[in-house]
Structure formats: C-alpha cells, structure tokens
C-alpha cells in the first residue's frame, strides 16, 4: 500500500519533526512519520514513550510545541495564509476533528445515553443528519460490531468488550477518513480482547486508514502494514511487521521486544 505514496498520493498523516513538551517535560522530540491512505500503522513502545501524546496531537487534543503536522494534506489546528501560520478558531478545529475518529483505552462512552444514542449524538448534533437516517445507520453500525440487540442498553449494562465495540461504532458514525486507536484493548479482560481486535481487523481489511497504539503484537503482525517503535519521545525504528518484530535493527527495539514477548 506504500505504493500509493510512491505514486504521489497525499499522505493521510505526515509528521515532520513534531515536538511536544509539557512545561519542562519533553514528551515528543522530533517525531517524523508518514501514514499512507488505507494503511494500518501500529505504534509500539514502552510506557511513557509518547505514543498517546502523539495520537492526541494528530486530532489536536494536544497542541504541538514545534515541527509540522498534517492530516490529509492540511495542517492540524492551524492554517497557512500568505506564508504565515495562524491558529484556527475552535469551531474550525472541531470541524476538522470530525474527519478523525478516536477510540480510547477507557472507552469514554457517554453513560447517560444508550448505545444507539451514543452513536447518533454527534451525527445528529454536529453533522445535522436527520434523526431517522442517523438512527438507521446507527443500527447498521451496531449490527456491524455485533451488537444489534443491545441498541437500548446503557454503557453500564454492557461488558467492557461490548462498550469498546460501541465506541468504535460511535467513531465510525462520523464517517472518518482516519481512525486513531489508543490501546483499545488494554482495559479489557483477556477473554474480551479478541472480539475488539476482530472488529479492527475487519476495518483494516475494508481499507480504513488506521493508527493503532497497541501492546497486542499478534495484531500488529497480522494486520499492520507498518510498525513504528517509539522510545523516550522519538521514533526509533519503522518497518514492516515481519522485519521489525522479528529482526529489529536497533538494540532498543530488541530490548523492548524481548521484554514484551
């Protein structure tokens, strides 16, 4: 799929020496990374290496401190006007975020809304879709994640795996062109991990561009086109899973993999 890039397609994500610091603490130092459309990229790395921070920068939940970050050819959170970079208004940032779906480690479903209401909330309120159309599509999405019969259940009435599947459906309801997953299975009981990964595999097979922070190396090996190893706020190594996961070039990658496996 990297062929798309070679053919001159606009990358879905292009990070160029992205820096991010929280006060004195530097979370990202010079992260450069490209994700081609339709590609599945898995981000791995030790705790505190900046994986979450990088994902959050991509949809501007965090403001980058330096460098350049583009999604689908457009700057994130800023616009360029006559050679100067200007900050976007909150309204425009919100509009850009609609094109990027995000799935959280802790699901973050809205507990006062049912599964179906969670899914149709944003399409109805911010994309002004008709309620009937959104509901129909919401039910279809629930069916797709295997939860057609739980449309009226509140999040507290669902298992962790079911909640995460609803969260994926909720993100898909906005018809994103890029999906970000931050350790989507880390908060799940082991027997529930498979059902969520299965949905993600399907999504990948359908050609969704995905950036996945995960500790599930099995998933990375099967589903990823590219695996990125991060450590201490930098990208240490990038490569296809077959190479990076079995014969890493860097000592730090090797050390991390030997600990995880």
């Amino acid at each position, binding site marked *: 799929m990297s062929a798309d890039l070679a053919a001159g397609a606009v990358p879905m994500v292009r990070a160029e020496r992205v820096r991010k610091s929280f006060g004195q603490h530097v979370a990202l130092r010079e992260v450069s990374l490209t994700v081609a459309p339709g590609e599945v990229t898995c981000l791995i790395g030790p705790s505190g290496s900046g994986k979450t921070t990088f994902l959050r920068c991509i*949809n501007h*939940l965090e403001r980058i401190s330096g460098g350049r970050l583009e999604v689908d050819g457009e700057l994130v959170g800023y616009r360029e006007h006559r050679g100067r970079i200007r900050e976007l208004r*909150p*309204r425009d940032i*919100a*509009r*850009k*975020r*609609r094109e*990027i*779906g*995000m799935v*959280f480690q*802790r699901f*973050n*479903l*809205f*507990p*006062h*809304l*049912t599964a179906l*209401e969670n899914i149709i*909330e*944003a399409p109805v*309120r*911010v994309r002004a879709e008709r309620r009937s159309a959104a509901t129909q599509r919401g039910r279809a999405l629930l069916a797709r994640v295997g939860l057609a*019969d*739980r449309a*009226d*259940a*509140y*999040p*507290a*009435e*669902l*298992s*962790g795996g*079911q*909640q995460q599947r609803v969260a994926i459906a*909720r*993100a898909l309801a*906005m018809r994103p062109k890029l999906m970000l997953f931050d350790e989507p299975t880390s908060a799940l*009981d082991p027997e529930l991990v498979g059902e969520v990964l299965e949905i993600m595999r399907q999504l990948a097979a359908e050609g969704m561009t995905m950036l996945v922070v995960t500790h599930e190396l099995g998933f990375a090996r099967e589903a990823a086109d590219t695996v990125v190893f991060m450590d201490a706020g930098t990208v240490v190594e990038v490569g296809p899973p077959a190479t990076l996961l079995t014969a890493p070039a860097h000592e730090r990658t090797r050390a991390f993999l030997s600990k995880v496996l």
Partner: protein
Amino acid sequence: MTAADASPPERGAAVPPLAPAPAPTPGPAAVATAGTGVGVDVDAVPLRHPGRWAAGVVILVLAAMGVHSLVTNPNFQWGTVGDYLFAEPVLRGMWATVYLTVIAMAIGIVGGIGLAILRMSPNPVVAGAAWLYIWFFRGTPLLVQILFWSFIGALYPRLSLGIPFGPSFVSGDANHIVPLFAAAVLGLGLNEAAYMAEIVRAGINGVDAGQTEAASALGMPRALTLRRIVLPQAMRTIIPPTGNETISMLKTTSLVSVISYNELLNATRLIYARNFQTVPLLIVAALWYLALTSVLTAGQHQLERRFARGILPRVGERR
C-alpha cells in the same frame, strides 16, 4: 432548563437479559445486592439490648409529655389555628411564598449555571468577575442584600438603559422599576445564584475529563459538549444539593417579610398584629412551611431517580 431537553430514550423496549458479564463500573448496583445475611435457624438466646429499650421509653415519655402539653395548654389555641389555617389571606401568602421560591430558584439555577461557566472561562477577566460576584453575594448577609434591593431607589433614584457613559434610551424612577416583588426576587435569586454556582461548578468538575475529550474527538463544539454531555451527567451530583437549596429557599423567603412583601409569614404577622393571636398564627405559618417542604422533599426524591439514568440499574432490572 438545560438538562430537560435531553431526548427521552425509548423506554419500555424489551431489553434482553444481561449477559453474565463483569460489572464494568462498580456502582450503586453492588450496594443494592448486599443485604443482611440473616436466615439461618440457630437455637440461641438472642442478644438483649437493654440500652435501646431504655432510650425508647425515655423518648416515648418525653413525646407523650409534649403532646399532652400541646393538647391541654390553652395558649396554643388550636381552635384559632383551625380558623386561620385556610383563611383567605393566609392562603394568598402561602401561594406568594411558593411563587417567590420558584422564581428565586429559577434565577438562582440559571444564574448559577451561567456563573459556573464564566468562572471556568479561560479569560481571566471573565473568571475573575464571576469570582468577585460569588465572593460578594456569599460574603454579605442575605437580609442586608434584601434591604439593599428595597432601598435601591435611594441609592440610584433614576435607572436608565443606554450606552455606558453615553446617552440613555429609556430611564425611569427606580422605585417604579424595582417594585417590592422585584426587590424580593432579586434579593433572594441573585444571592442563590452565588451558592448554586459553586454547586454547579463542583458538579461539572466531577464529570470525568474523558467525557469532554470523547466529545471533542467527535468534533462537538465546547458549548454543545457542555449542554449535551457534561451538564446532564453533572446533574446527578447537582440535584441533591439543589433540592436542599430549594427547601432552604422556601423557608428563607420569610426574610422578605422585613420589606413587607406579603408572603406567608408577613400574611400571618398582619393578622396577629390586629387580633394579637400571635402563637396560633405562627403555628399556622409553621404548619404550611412544614407541608410545603414535605412536598418538595418528595419531589426531590423523584428527580434524583430520573437523573440517575444509565448510572443506576433501571427499575425492574435489579436482581
């Protein structure tokens, strides 16, 4: 109010039995299932509680003495209480109290939400102004504030609407613009807003930050997120203290009798000023306050159930 337009979910739809899944959030459900485990037949002499019996007897004796004095002391004049309980001026005062409570609380709640939002503004001037308001209205006695509002005419004899420091379009005599009712309602409502602001702020801060992030990630603007996601969840923690504030407000309205606004207490005071039946008329007022606060307490319970939606198990689903 804001949370009222939260679309009602389709209730009554058959919900399949819950899968035996691990409870994802330890909630009140866990508490509900924990019961007393008595039920084993053991042939043993039950523990005696002589202390409980003694306390019970003492209280019963005291209560009997109290009732006896209530019934036999002629100074209570229960006949007079009965005569005035449903008297026309008393009923009018009672409704005025209800009306005052509703409007003052409406101002308090709307103002409180507004102040809480301003208080959390990224603009330090805006946040500072909200802080100043809360500081002032919580830091001075309500009675003083009510008196101030009733004498606003002395402070600013003419009120006008226009461009600041510029020409004015409308202006009038303050005593006409701020009549007694407005003074009463402003005094109570603006003060309440300061207290409600802190309650609302605590409620909003209590909502998990992940909720705002999830809404932001979906592209929901700040105001919509607040209205549709954060406030409805904050309601759960806001409502119990708001219920207490309402009950407290109902009784606090009696303060405006000092500016002769004719609510329940003032209505009874006017009567005993003429016939000198002070004690029975104060009893009339007390009985009405008791009745009204009892109604409010019942209503508060209903509201709390309503906003526990999605957090407590639904009725009929407890096992």
